[in-house]
């Protein structure tokens, strides 16, 4: 039986759950996120390797990704 630990909480996985998560991760760390519904923890996000699969070659062309970044030279088109 495998044990997943997260900030002091630990859960015992069934053999099937263990196998499924190992297959899903394929050796890459798996992160789970979920919500507590009554007495059940419902996992709604399974992220592999923190969700990062590939770095964007055009980080500024992703919608919503440009804000709040550093600005260290003259304004665009000025120099």
């Amino acid at each position: 039986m495998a044990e997943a630990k997260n900030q002091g909480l630990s859960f015992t996985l069934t053999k099937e759950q263990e196998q499924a998560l190992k297959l899903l991760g394929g050796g890459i760390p798996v992160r789970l996120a979920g919500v507590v519904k009554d007495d059940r923890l419902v996992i709604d996000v399974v992220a592999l390797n923190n969700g990062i699969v590939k770095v964007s070659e055009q980080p500024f062309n992703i919608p919503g990704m440009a804000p709040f970044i550093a600005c260290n030279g003259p304004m665009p088109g000025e120099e």
Partner: protein
Amino acid sequence: MIALRSLLESELTAAGVGRLEHYLGAMSDGFESNPPPFAFAEYGDHYRRCAVNPYWLIQSLISNSVKEGDGARDLWKLTTRIEDDGLRAQVVQHARDEARHARLYIGILRTVFPHALSKEDERYILDRAPRFDVTPPAPVAPHPLARVVDLIVQINLGEFRTRLHQLLMMPVLDCLCSGRETRLAVLMESIARDELQHLAYTAEVIDRWMGDGNGPEGRRLVASRLQQFNALTTREVGEQMFH
């Protein structure tokens, strides 16, 4: 806008700069006539709404790294247009600092999200950060001083906003890096120390120039560049911010 002026004053004090009345007056007037988006609570609220998404935060750190590298290249290029040796040396140092920041942001990413990047992706990003020669390029076709000051005003506004972003970013990152807070603090403080110096030297250049009989022109310049910078910030943040 009093809070923004106070923040600016306290940042300059932290950088060891005396009172720069011409500069602070121009910035204060500019904040009143053209309030920057980053002066409003909604700006911080929007940042925190975005930053709860770790994928956004990771990409934001990567974007900061890329942007610091781009800024470093622009500054390096600018050094060839500055005649004054002292100011040119400061801009050269500024460019070197920003190139280092491009690497530090990846260090921050590695500290907060140790598994987020593969070695190959990390190498790909780090390879994009500029590496400059020991000897800076010689000046060619220098700009008139007024044009240099115009560019310094733009750089100063960018530095101030960048500093504000760091103040927004730090508590969010701190929450996420359990057990590695000390490492994060070292990296963030290293960047913050440089940014304060950049804010300070650019503010001193503007203040000195205004004190040399360019007061009214300086106030007009700051107001006009602040208006443009605000439009740029609003465009970057997008219409989503105030919804």
